[in-house]
């Protein structure tokens, strides 16, 4: 049978996939290959440890060796058995204070500074850079630096206070259980304020000038403008910073570790959940079962952060849609 030219084309179209489409999809698959290294790293160093921790939390351990499946035993011990339950409650409380303290000292101050910088003051770029500078240092370095500054006998702060005649204010800031946690919170705020300022500035700069002008004509006072225009319109950045601060506060480890050691001294007054986890898993609090218990604590920590973040994201998204 001899096919006419037209028929040949028709048959070809039916039998063979279109070359252009084929080429395009091949290109797309090829591009996926480039994601593979990152994916392997992510799964290997993020997903696998998390899953392992989940699994481990249901097992008993002897040293580093996994033993028997014990169901929720580790969790029950963590919440009911001394000293775990006391240490857990104490550390959890500190995490909450850490979060509230950081919101008050870092976020509120950062927002106020961002407002100032946004008000077209001279040298705004300079101030932005200055406030951001600490973030360039390693947390360990910051911790070490402040340990020196806050040293009760020869630290710069107390020496300064004595020099300006405020000797009675000099204080073992990190040595007194009453002030140690708050001091660390302040150091952390100093360290992270630049980043918060940048995020807030981005939020503030996204508010069109016309809105303020309209509000001015609408008779809004300075305070009203702040409460009814600026803050509601900067809410996305405020929400993001609050969520990040929450996650940061419950994950916090390095700074406390660098300044106060693994036990969150003095007398556990700066102990936080991540430090407790570190001691359980890698320290010597309870030799045998430590990995299982530590994993249980890690899972609890993970769930706290996940739940709080999910709830705030849910409200945040809803607000965003409303806007």
């Amino acid at each position: 049978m001899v096919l006419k030219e037209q028929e040949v084309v028709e048959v070809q179209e039916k039998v063979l996939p279109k070359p252009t489409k084929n080429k395009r999809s091949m290109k797309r698959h090829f591009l996926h290959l480039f994601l593979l290294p990152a994916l392997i790293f992510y799964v290997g160093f993020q997903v696998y440890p998390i899953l392992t921790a989940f699994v481990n939390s249901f097992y008993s351990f002897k040293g580093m060796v996994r033993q028997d499946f014990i169901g929720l035993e580790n969790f029950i011990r963590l919440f009911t058995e001394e000293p775990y339950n006391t240490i857990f409650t104490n550390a959890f409380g500190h995490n909450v204070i850490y979060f509230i303290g950081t919101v008050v000292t870092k976020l509120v101050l950062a927002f106020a500074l961002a407002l100032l910088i946004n008000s077209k003051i001279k040298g705004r770029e300079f101030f932005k850079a200055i406030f951001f500078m600490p973030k360039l240092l390693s947390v360990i370095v910051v911790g070490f630096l402040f340990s020196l500054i806050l040293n009760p006998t020869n630290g710069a702060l107390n020496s300064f206070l004595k020099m300006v005649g405020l000797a009675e204010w000099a204080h073992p800031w990190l040595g007194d259980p009453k002030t140690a946690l708050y001091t660390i919170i302040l150091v952390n705020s100093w360290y992270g304020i630049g980043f918060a300022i940048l995020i807030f500035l981005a939020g503030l700069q996204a508010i069109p000038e016309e809105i303020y002008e309209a509000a001015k004509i609408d008779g809004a006072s300075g305070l009203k403008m702040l409460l009814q225009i600026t803050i509601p319109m900067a809410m996305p950045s405020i929400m993001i910073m609050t969520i990040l601060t929450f996650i940061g506060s419950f994950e916090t480890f390095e700074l406390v570790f660098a300044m106060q050691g693994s036990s969150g001294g003095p007398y556990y007054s700066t102990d936080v959940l991540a430090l407790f986890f570190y001691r359980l898993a890698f320290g010597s609090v309870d030799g045998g079962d430590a990995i299982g218990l530590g994993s249980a604590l890690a899972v609890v920590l993970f769930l706290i952060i996940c739940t709080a973040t999910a709830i705030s994201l849910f409200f945040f998204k809803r607000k965003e849609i409303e806007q």
Partner: protein
Amino acid sequence: MAELILEHIYKEFDKNVTAVSDFHLHIKDEEFIVFVGPSGCGKSTTLRMIAGLEEITSGSIYINGKRVNDVAPKDRDIAMVFQNYALYPHMTVYGNMAFGLKNRKFPKEEINRRVMNAARILGLEELLDRKPKALSGGQRQRVALGRAIVRDAQVFLMDEPLSNLDAKLRVQMRAEIAMLHQRLKTTTIYVTHDQTEAMTMATRLVVMKDGFIQQIGSPKEVYEHPENVFVGGFIGSPAMNFFEGIVHEGSFRIGDTRLSIPRSQMELLRGLGYIGKEAIIGIRPEHIEEAIVGTAGGNGSGTRSNVSIQVDVSELTGAETMVYSSLEGQKFVARLSAETAIRPGEHVNLAFVMDKVHFFDKETELRIRPVQKAAELVETS
């Protein structure tokens, strides 16, 4: 209701950039004034000075006889509609309209009454619970208008309020704003760069360029008697045609083309010593007609001059045809009837209606007018 006096207003920005120079205008109660001009002409700056959003470098602004130079925007009893609407995105339509009244501590019932009234006027009743994000451009613009209406302010200031709308909606909103003004009779100052908007809405136009007022007058006055080449070219679409040439006794010569000058014009030009001098003539596209074969002029009365040209482009716009061509190397456009048989490339005769031609000085680009009349004008301004 209010009367505004803008007395020799100047606005200088840093580094001696003068945005507005000697702006002098008396706005009567219930007027709808339109500031029109190309971007950067100072029209928005002037409006913002009236609103109090921009400081005045020198001069005075009076609203109902009260000097308001140092009065805060909220105390000037003005309402403003912004180019990008400037609605509060986190408030509902109701909240947006009520915000100004709440700030002024109006009782709740009064706020409700006014907002509902404005919503009824603007057809926003169904949308009061929505946020601006859920509204179309036209609806947002209505909310912005509503925010101004509820305030019952003395003066409405509108800064290019329609420039973000599509062409069809713009025409519709233009009519709505005009109707709103007829209904509320609030003194309104409206800024636009769109000369059609300016022509259709204004009771009086203020044409501006480079910070200077070029002409103040009713749309008809400005259209029929432009004070200078800029106004002639800016107001009207398509723009006025200009030709440079030399004034002779009885005729205006553009190269080899002679256009006859009507007697009254000739007397004026002669009297002012323009004979033998260069000048510019301006003629609107609708004053160029198809010449009727065998007549000295066109098909109507008055002085007409026939010119022979080659058509470059002809565009049928529906009700009329725009014919593009050039005369002695100077481009022009004629607005002819849709029925014209003229096609691109054809050589045809067109008639210039010379009674409608405007004469401008070559140097100053000002309209050539009787000295006495010019003196009168200076006195009255």
